[in-house]
């Protein structure tokens, strides 16, 4: 494992950055870290990682580590080709926990990252101290199909993810709406491609067979107006994880932690503090 540091978005928010190579040094994962307290690992969604107010809020009580999914770290796009599937990805993240020196940690994930956190907690139940899943994917109900955001016109993404498509949260995650920022568009498209590798064509890869292995105290957070992954999935997850709790977020879509950072951070912080103390 090698470590390097560089300046990145998030640095201005005071996050430390390091790039950790796992998988026999073939997969380079940049990790943003901030705060102090018990360890918390945050797995971002399919649109890439941008340090945000939600993570800042969590960093007041936790040492937050936010890794970038393989292939989404700048200068390492082709790392996306080096894993064959979800099993490889879960093993990579287990190696990353070792590299960060974390025997156990609270795992938090959004959307695709929620699926990753849940899979990791199912594969290695003892390493997940607590689990907070924000509008996660990973299960499938025929009566409630999940929208494939990779088939949408990129210009239509904001209105599918956010209740307020022109708001600050949308701009922070997806870049300027006017198409002018080519670098942001490349980053966005590639993040969807690299994460899409593990969920195409339907985001259900067998979690339903493994989810019973999750032993960590679990919180499900769902935006009441999620247009991509219907809120009914909160019950689907909660029904399969013993003791799981569900919290709905008003006036929020698929990314409630970005549109309503303070209340969502409060929910997550209170839950994790109770679960990890």
């Amino acid at each position, binding site marked *: 494992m090698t470590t390097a540091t560089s300046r990145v978005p998030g640095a201005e928010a005071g996050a430390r950055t390091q790039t950790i190579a796992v998988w026999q040094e073939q997969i380079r994962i940049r990790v943003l870290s901030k705060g102090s307290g018990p360890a918390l690992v945050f797995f971002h969604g399919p649109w890439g990682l941008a340090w945000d107010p939600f993570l800042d809020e969590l960093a007041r009580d936790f040492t937050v580590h936010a890794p970038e999914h393989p292939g989404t770290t700048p200068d390492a796009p082709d790392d996306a*080709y080096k894993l064959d599937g979800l099993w490889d990805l879960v093993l990579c993240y287990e190696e990353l926990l070792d590299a960060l020196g974390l025997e156990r940690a609270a795992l938090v994930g959004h959307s695709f990252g929620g699926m990753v956190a849940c899979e990791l907690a199912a594969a290695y139940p003892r390493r997940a101290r607590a689990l907070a899943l924000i509008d996660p994917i990973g299960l499938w109900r025929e009566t409630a199909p999940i929208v494939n955001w990779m088939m949408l016109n990129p210009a239509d993404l904001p209105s599918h993810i956010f209740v307020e498509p022109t708001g600050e949260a949308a701009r922070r995650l997806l870049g300027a709406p006017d198409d002018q920022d080519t670098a942001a568009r490349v980053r966005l498209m590639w993040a969807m491609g690299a994460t899409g590798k593990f969920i195409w064509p339907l985001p259900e890869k067998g979690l339903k067979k493994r989810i019973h292995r999750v032993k960590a105290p679990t919180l499900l957070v769902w935006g009441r107006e999620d247009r991509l992954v219907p809120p009914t999935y909160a019950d689907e997850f909660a029904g399969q994880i013993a003791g799981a709790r569900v919290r709905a977020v008003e006036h929020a879509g698929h990314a409630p932690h970005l549109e309503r950072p303070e209340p969502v951070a409060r929910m997550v912080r209170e839950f994790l503090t109770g679960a990890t103390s």
Partner: protein
Amino acid sequence: MKISAFHLMPHRELPPDFEQRYESVWVTPPWWELADAGRVGQYYNWTLDELLYAARAGFDGVCTNEHHQNAYGFMPSPNLMGSVLAKLTNGSDVAIVQMGATLPTSNPPIRVAEEYAMLDCISGGRLVAGLPLGSPMDVNLCYGITPLEHRERYREAFALTMKAWQAREIFAWNGRYHQLANVNLWPRPIQQPHPPVWVPGSGSISTFDFAVEHDVCYCFLSYSGARSARSMMDGYWRVVAERGKEANPYRAGFLQLVAVAENDAQAEAKYARHVEYFYHKCLHVPGAWFAPPGNQDYRSLAATLANPVRRAENPKTLRYRDFVEKGYVIAGSPATVRQRLEEEVIKGLRVGNLMVLLQIGSMPHELALENIDLFAREVLPHLRGTWDDEGWVNHWWPERLRGARSSGPAITSVAAGGA
């Protein structure tokens, strides 16, 4: 020069407001609202009759291709069509050009190697083996292949296909995407070491490299005509030169829409609405579906987004005269068509293996036969000798068909549309 008749097998009777009412011609058009199986059976038979008519009229080859879940061209299995064509053209020197069965959607991919070997056996060694990557709509959206794996799967399947045709010993294939313990193809193709291979593309740089590296014929399947293809094909020939390969024009194929009539005005009267139907309805697909995230590698994605020149023109805003003026379609009198094909396509792009699409969109059967007939009589004979004075060998054509087409028994005229 080799000139082949290409067919898409489109839906010929979409409603006039199709593109306003429906999201897409591909992936999601509702079958039960738009089609009727009995009528579609008629389309398939017309398609076969039109290609057989072209074969008998003197074309060098007949081409079919694979697409799924669409009204633009729906031959999910081009090899079913190819086997009919192979059987019914036996005794003639027409090539069966499969453009072709799509490797990433065939599982295991040796299925394509087997079926192509069957076609080569049935046709007596007249197969051209097109090995396309497949469109993102077909491969990713309809057949569920992960976009990021699309090209890797293709490269593995291509290597497996070539080895399966040629290996003298049974071998095990331990690939990333396919594992086969006993590869021992039955049958093998007549053509040795393997049938000529064409790789269709739509201008991506990585496909140029692949085509040159594997010494196959690169075919640019464009609907935007030779003018917009020029810089693309120049790029291909640059790669050919850089790799130290000879600039043999038969190394390149190109697809061109063509409509021939007695004169230019008649061409407009006969063909305008069918050309507009094709560009307005048959290509009605959300732009994002041509490039789902991960389908383009990172280098191509960055290049495309930094320089989105090719997306600048929306065909829905163009009319027949625009399509003709811009060269999307070469239409007019035989003299007009001859001249434009020779200057813009054959010489302009340096193309030895030309494919022409003569049944366009809603064009009815009788008019398609008329177009094929006029092209065969008034255009094709004038273009056939284009490259002869340079003495190139068409290594990408079945060896026994490389000479000029003879007037064999298959040339005998047939009643139009005799199914």
